[in-house]
C-alpha cells in the first residue's frame, strides 16, 4: 500500500474535479462527520443522511474553500447544519449510553489506561450528568471531549464565536464537577 496523499494535495485534486481524491477525503473524515451529526441530529438514520448530504454539499462548495484553511471544521460546519435541520424538524436529541461491554468487569482484553481511570459507577454518574446538561452546553462538551475537536473547531462547526464556546464549556464543566467530585 502506498503512502497516503496529504490532505491539501487531495483537496487540490478534488477542486479540479477528481472524484477519487474526494473519495479519499470522505473516507478520512466520515467517522468524525457521522459522530458530529449523530450528536446533533439525535439518531443514526438522520446522522447518516446529514453526513452524506454534508459531503455532497461540501463537494459542490469546494471551489470556494480557501487553500491552506483547515478542511475538517469547514466540512463539519456543513454537516452540522444538515444535522441541525433534521433535528429541528423532530425535536429530539441523542441519548448517550455506554457500550454494553464496558459495563462488564471481566473480559479477555485489558481496559484502556483511560478507561481504567473511571469506575463503572463514576462512568454512569458522569454520563447521566452530561445527558442532563442543557442542549447547547451538552453539544459543546460532546464535540470537545467525545468527538475530540479543539475549541476553535467546535466554534467553527457550530458557527459560534470562540468566546461563546468557552463560556458554554466553562458552565457545563462547573455543573459536571458537582457530579464528579
Amino acid at each position, binding site marked *: 500500500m502506498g503512502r497516503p496523499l496529504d490532505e491539501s494535495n487531495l483537496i487540490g485534486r478534488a477542486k479540479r474535479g477528481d472524484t477519487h481524491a474526494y473519495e479519499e477525503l470522505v473516507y478520512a473524515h466520515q467517522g468524525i462527520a457521522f459522530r458530529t451529526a449523530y450528536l446533533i441530529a439525535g439518531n443514526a438514520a438522520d446522522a447518516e443522511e446529514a453526513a*452524506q448530504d454534508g459531503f455532497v454539499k461540501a463537494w459542490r462548495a469546494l471551489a470556494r474553500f480557501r487553500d491552506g484553511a483547515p478542511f475538517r471544521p469547514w466540512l463539519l460546519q456543513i454537516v452540522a447544519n444538515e444535522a441541525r*435541520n433534521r433535528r429541528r424538524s423532530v425535536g429530539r436529541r441523542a441519548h448517550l449510553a455506554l457500550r454494553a461491554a464496558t459495563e462488564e468487569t471481566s473480559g479477555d482484553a485489558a481496559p484502556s489506561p483511560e478507561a481504567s481511570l*473511571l469506575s463503572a459507577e463514576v462512568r454512569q454518574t458522569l454520563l447521566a450528568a452530561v445527558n442532563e446538561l442543557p442542549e447547547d452546553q451538552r453539544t459543546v462538551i460532546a464535540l470537545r471531549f467525545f468527538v475530540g475537536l479543539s475549541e476553535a473547531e467546535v466554534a467553527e462547526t457550530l458557527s459560534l464565536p470562540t468566546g461563546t464556546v468557552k463560556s458554554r464549556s466553562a458552565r457545563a464543566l462547573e455543573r459536571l464537577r458537582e457530579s464528579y467530585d
Partner: protein
Amino acid sequence: MTELERALVALGRELDFPPEPDLRSRVRERIERRPRYRRALVPALALLVALGIALAVPEARSAILRFFHIGAVTIERVETLPPGRERPLTAGLGPALSLHDAEARSGVALVLTRPRPQRFYAQPGLIATLLQYRGKPVLVAELQGDQMGIAKKLAGAATRVEVARIGSFGLWLEGGRHLLIWEAGPGEVRQIEPRLAGNVLIWTEGDRTFRLEGGLNKGQMLELARQITR
C-alpha cells in the same frame, strides 16, 4: 487538562455510538451524477421551450401557471393571498455573514462574481446578498437545484408572469400583490414569515436557480442577470 476533562475523554471512548457507515460509494454516486443530469437537460430544455411558447399565449398561460416549478422555486396562483406584509428584502434570511461563513452555512458556492458585495445571507441550500443596481436595492439569491421547495411564490391574479430569455429557462413576475414564502428546506417545518414581494426574475442554469428581486423593470433586471451568469 483537568482530571474532569481527562475523565470526559475517557468516557467518550466508552460510549455506544452507532456503527459508522461507509459513505464513499453513495457520495461518489451523487457527485458523479451531474454529467448524466446535464445530458438529461437536452430533452428537458425542449420541453421548456414548448412550455415557453405555451406561456406566451394568455389562455394557455393562465391554465398552466396555477402551479409551476422552476428550479427550486414553486409558483402557485391562488384566489386569495395568505396574510403577508411589506418587509425588508433580507427579512427572514438570518444575520449578515462573511462569504466564507455564508457558503459554509448554505452549502452553496456563490456563482456571483461581480459586483461583489461584502455581506451575505444564508439558509441551508440558499445563499443571498443585496446589491445596489441603477440606484435600487436588489436581492440576489442562489438556490441549489435539488432543494425543491425552498422558496414558494404565491401570485395573485393581477401579477403578470412572462417567459424571460435567460439561462436554461426564466420567468419574470411583475405587478399586483404577490407573496414570497421562504422555506428552510425539505423536511424542515420552520417557515419564515411571508412577505409581499417586488418584481422578480427567476431562472435556472445547470443545477442552480437564480432569483432577483427589486424595484427594477424587466429590461434592467435582465441586464443585471446577464452580468451574473455571463
